[in-house]
């Protein structure tokens, strides 16, 4: 997200799902859409079937590659080089959108200079993709317009993930494929409400609506809105009456500080970092050090074992609220059945903790009242109310009660101070780990169609468990032969951080040198070995590139 903020001024999927139908070209890079976003994957396949150019770039031969017009297979960690190579070709072949660059973007002189390092020889050598194939993909993307670009964690989960995002934005800007229907830069958000959680300020640097915590005017606005400074009823409020002006810690940093003893209590709602966080061993050691840990969840997850208190939460089918999907659409969630046992909705539990602490501002009887408060402090949600989203939802920005919502962003200007977008000069940065004699393979992670994240929900559905019941290390026939591994056999996968046991699956979806696992299965906890090296800006771990060694067992 930080990358898109640099380029465009705001970070979210720019266009809408339905607009896929109208695109002349779809470019899917670093996303395994048919597994991770299946219904969008269906729509992409349908568009390709109806004549759209489907371009796919992925380190693995994902299923979308089977129906693609052009499929290229860059080495893990080489996306920036691939994208900058495409930009270089587009400029050299004079396929860039000159009018768009002149009217909507800042001067590209510096960006153009940065392309000099990305010679065809260097790009081909680094990505492993022949130059003429890169040119073909670039030419179609630049000329068969509108072209919509889609990416996911394959671009972002790198120690240079922010660069990857800016590289994607550069390509779209250079070709004028943004600010129009059926075009755009479209990060596919993973979880049902990851967009909403970001919008709502469940981030260490932003209040709701991406208002910076370090901005004094913003702080004052929230102090007023939340009535801070006013004495609460029983006078128990501590002397500090201002909101913190200090940036908070990110997910990965929080576990570092717990480990170092600086964070003593943790409130963990609906997460299972023992399976989802890179270098999960470190998370375990950190959790053991906490003075007090509260976990709020549907089930006793792997992480909940380390809690001091577990609070039973109601499921999505038992409560009201809203989710914001990947295309910024705020949609209703409605209770279908009563909460199981004594479980309660998360909004009720958080409010009750605050009230027990004698704090004002948490007296809500219904989530619609919370949405009214959200709308009052979040400009992009200003016009959202339950009445307006009864049927189909609204896409933010939706500034006031008469605003129709926004199907695509950046129509007339970008959200940067001067209204213009920026093509960011980039350099090649190697992944934190590269293959060597000791760890000769690169492990990359992906997701299964049949499971969801740490699978606490899906593995409790008998049929899904039957369709996909255990982890597979997918590796190429060449590597299988090189290390004497047979299809189906148990192997150990070693990295610098640990070892997991897993069944091997010999398949040519992985090119030689690359192997792949999901992270859904507690029996083979992939993230105990992945690389927690962080992108310096977005603080995202490099789970897409981990150097590993595969060994036979026994």
């Amino acid at each position, binding site marked *: 997200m930080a990358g898109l903020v640099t380029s465009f001024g705001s970070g979210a999927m720019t266009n*809408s799902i339905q607009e896929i139908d109208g695109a002349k070209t779809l470019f899917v890079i670093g996303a395994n859409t048919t597994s991770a976003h299946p219904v969008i994957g269906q729509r992409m396949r349908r568009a390709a079937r109806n004549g759209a150019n489907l371009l796919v770039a992925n380190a693995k031969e994902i299923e979308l590659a089977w129906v693609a017009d052009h499929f290229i297979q860059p080495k893990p960690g080489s996306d920036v080089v691939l994208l900058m190579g495409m930009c270089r070709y587009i400029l050299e072949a004079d396929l860039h959108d000159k009018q768009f660059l002149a009217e909507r973007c800042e001067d590209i002189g510096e960006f153009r200079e940065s392309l000099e390092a990305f010679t065809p020889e260097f790009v081909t050598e680094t990505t492993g993709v022949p130059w003429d194939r890169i040119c073909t993909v670039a030419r179609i993307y630049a000329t068969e317009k509108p072209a919509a670009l889609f990416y996911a964690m394959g671009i972002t989960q790198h120690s240079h993930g922010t660069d990857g995002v800016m590289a994607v934005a550069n390509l779209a800007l250079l070709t004028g494929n943004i600010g129009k229907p059926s075009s755009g830069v479209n990060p596919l958000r993973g979880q049902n409400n990851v967009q909403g959680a970001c919008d709502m300020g469940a981030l*260490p640097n932003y209040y709701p609506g991406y208002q910076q915590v370090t901005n004094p005017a913003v702080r004052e606005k929230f102090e007023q809105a939340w009535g801070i400074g006013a004495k609460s009823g029983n006078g128990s409020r501590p002397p500090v009456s201002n909101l913190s002006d200090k940036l908070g810690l990110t997910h990965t940093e929080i576990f570092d500080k717990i480990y170092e003893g600086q964070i003593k209590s943790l*409130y963990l709602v609906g997460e299972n970092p023992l399976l989802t966080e890179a270098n999960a061993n470190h998370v375990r050691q950190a959790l053991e050090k906490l003075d007090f840990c509260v976990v709020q969840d549907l089930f006793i997850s792997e992480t909940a074992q380390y809690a001091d208190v*577990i609070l039973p939460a109601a499921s999505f089918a038992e409560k009201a609220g809203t989710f914001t999907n990947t295309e910024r659409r*705020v949609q209703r969630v409605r209770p279908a059945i009563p909460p199981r046992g*004594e479980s309660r909705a998360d909004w009720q539990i958080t409010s009750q903790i605050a009230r027990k602490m004698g704090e004002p501002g948490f007296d809500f009887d219904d989530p619609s009242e919370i949405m009214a408060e959200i709308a009052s402090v979040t400009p992009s949600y200003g016009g959202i109310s339950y009445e307006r989203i009864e049927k189909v939802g609204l896409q933010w920005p939706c500034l006031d009660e008469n605003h129709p919502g926004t199907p695509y962003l950046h129509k007339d200007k970008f959200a940067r101070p001067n209204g213009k977008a920026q093509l960011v000069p980039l350099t090649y940065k190697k992944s934190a780990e590269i293959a060597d004699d000791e760890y000769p393979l690169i492990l990359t992670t992906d997701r299964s169609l049949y499971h969801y994240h740490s699978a606490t929900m899906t593995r409790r559905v008998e*049929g899904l468990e039957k369709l996909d019941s255990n982890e597979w290390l997918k590796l190429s026939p060449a590597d299988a032969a090189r290390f004497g591994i047979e299809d189906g056999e148990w192997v150990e996968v070693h990295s610098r951080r640990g070892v997991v046991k897993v069944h091997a699956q010999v398949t040519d979806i992985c090119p030689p040198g690359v192997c792949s696992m999901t992270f859904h299965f507690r029996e083979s906890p992939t993230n105990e070995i992945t690389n927690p090296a962080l992108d310096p800006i977005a603080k995202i771990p490099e789970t897409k590139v981990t150097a590993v060694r595969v060994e036979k067992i026994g």
Partner: protein
Amino acid sequence: MSQEAKSIRLTIDGQEITAEEGSSVLDAALANDIYIPHLCHHPDLKPVGACRLCGVEIDGRPMTTSCTTAVQEGMDVKTDSEKIHHARKTAMELLISDHHMDCLACAAANDCALLTDSAYLGIEPDHLVRLRPSSKGLPIDTSNPFFQFDPNKCVICGICVRTCDEIVGRGTLEFIDRGFGTTIGTFGNKSFMESTCESCGECVVRCPVGALAPKRPKFAAREVKTTCVYCGVGCGIYLGVAGDKIVDVRGDRERPTNEGSLCVKGRYGFNFVNHSDRLTKPLIKKNGEFVESEWDEALELVASKFADTKGDEFAALASAKCTNEENYLIQKFTRAVMQTNNVDHCARL
């Protein structure tokens, strides 16, 4: 698409109606509440004119398939005549003659095109005796955990084949063999489980008879419009509820995100809600063991411990699975009550 479609006037059974240019005679009739029997037609799919039940008389031309004929200005359509009835009845009887009938126990009993069309055509008991309908005795494919395929009930309308191709873009299903032996199968005639099938169930919801049917069909007493909890696509769904259990899910066609489509998780993946592992009471760890407690005790404990660690000694991890309202409250709690910006969630994972 942006141009307004032209309006066409035509007459069906003496009734003057209007229809959009490009629509079929069958669609125009159905949209005006004039029933024409049909099996292989589905509004989401391109027409093929395979079942021969929708034949009508147009401007005196007998037996024109109404699903494949576009409306034209001044067209005069007759949906029934002796000749048409005879042809339809013959087509229907041939379908019934090798259709396995266990209607009371069939998953499609409340929504079977074969039953509707037979009722319309007036298939009589002595006809059935003469036809001696019997099962083809073909094995039922029960390999998929969520649905099954009974070729003995299949009417070879091809809706499943076209759905997998046109809607899902997967192309798992195909017609196999020829003539009377024609059936539906996968590449290499593998079972559904071994095929490239993604178990999205789009074919199952469109099957007009009970050939492709959910394994444990349950009739929902009521439906609730909501949003899927799995991925970021945010598909609109209707949860079908019986008692206090979710028994069925269907896609919400009104929602632009998915226009009715669902994936395997969204259609079949909600049993976790009713799972016996669900936490039903607060638990407090005492001497290393989790002990059930009352809410009040748990909340008191949490409130007092949190009150002791205000400031940067505290951190909260919100959840991309929770609602906007809940994420808002968690960050508000962290910032306003706990006086720190240490709040994040798994956006990066």
